[in-house]
């Protein structure tokens, strides 16, 4: 008798119109959601292509400005070390030590930039949360790809707030990198510049050189 109880008792079984309508409704929503998702993916690709070069140019200028002072400083200390090598009476030790610290400082700034680059950009699937905004009602959609668990959507929200903000966020991000570079372990650039000026005086080198180093101090602080 089990086959009898398996038959639904509802009278609606024979109400074909209602069933058909809700089925079509579901199918329609699924299809439209799929269309919106396809559009979203196409849009992401096109948007990326449209802004990559602009972003590159923006970042290039920032990076170039950022390395100007430390690069020049390293050139100055390297030249001083070469000069010391040619002077038998000069001790190489202090200038070599300074050069190592300057190199470490520069490497620290590069390292901070590389770290920022390695942060994975949000993938398309992680951005699926945005589908909610497209006016497609997902709750009626039965397909497995429509159902995301809580953890996923949590990750969506985090990914969005972390990585895809507006222009304001871009500059905030840049401020973050900048701050990071200021706290590179070891001595600050200010301290290193000061040490270099001391060495220039000790070696009895031209005042003009001290002025160049002093200028760097103003460029970077």
């Amino acid at each position, binding site marked *: 008798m089990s086959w009898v109880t398996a038959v639904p008792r509802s009278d609606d079984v024979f109400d074909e119109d209602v069933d058909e309508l809700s089925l079509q409704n579901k199918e329609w929503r699924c299809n439209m959601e799929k269309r919106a998702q396809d559009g*979203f993916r196409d849009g992401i690709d096109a948007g990326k292509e449209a802004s990559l070069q602009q972003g590159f140019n923006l970042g290039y200028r920032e*990076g170039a400005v950022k390395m*100007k002072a430390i*690069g020049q400083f390293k050139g100055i200390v390297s*030249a001083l070390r070469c000069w010391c090598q040619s002077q038998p009476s000069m001790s190489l030790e202090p200038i070599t030590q300074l050069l190592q610290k300057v190199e470490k400082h520069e490497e620290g700034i590069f390292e901070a930039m590389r770290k920022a680059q390695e942060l994975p950009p949000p993938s398309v699937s992680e951005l699926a949360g945005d589908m909610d905004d497209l006016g497609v009602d997902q709750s009626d959609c039965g397909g497995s790809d429509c159902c995301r668990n809580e953890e996923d959507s949590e990750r969506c929200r985090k990914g969005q707030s972390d990585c*895809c903000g507006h222009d304001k966020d871009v500059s905030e991000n840049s401020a973050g990198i900048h701050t990071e570079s200021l706290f590179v372990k070891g001595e600050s650039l200010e301290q290193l510049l000061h040490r270099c000026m001391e060495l220039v005086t000790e070696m009895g080198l031209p005042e*003009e050189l001290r002025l160049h180093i002093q200028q760097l101090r103003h460029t970077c602080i």
Partner: protein
Amino acid sequence: MAGFSHNVSDDLFDSIIMADDRFHVDGYHEGFEEGMQQGLIEGRNHGMLHGAKLSAEVSFYHGFALTWKCLLQNTEDVKARKRLKAVESLNAMIQKFPYEDPQYENLQEHMERVRAKFRQVCSLLSVAADFREYVSGSEGMSF
């Protein structure tokens, strides 16, 4: 009256057909905005490293040239004069170089000239131009 009902059914039919496109277009616009942001961030991170590398290299040469100019300025002998001239020419070349501009059309070409000049200066100064990180780091400069 007949015309009116014709219009209504026509609109209804159209809106069903157009909905397909409308959802695609709506999704596209959302995605485009998102992609713009992503592209901006990815491009920026990528560009920053390139700009930083090139600037660090050029600025290094600049500091190097400035220092040697100061060191050689007050010497009288012929050899030092020749060295000073080369150092000054490297310095001038760098000052004319808008290396901070990624859209400068002769960026690569100008960079090669600066590198060649630097090597020449090093050889005149009897200094080993073994600043290896720049020589190896200069290969992946194209985007």
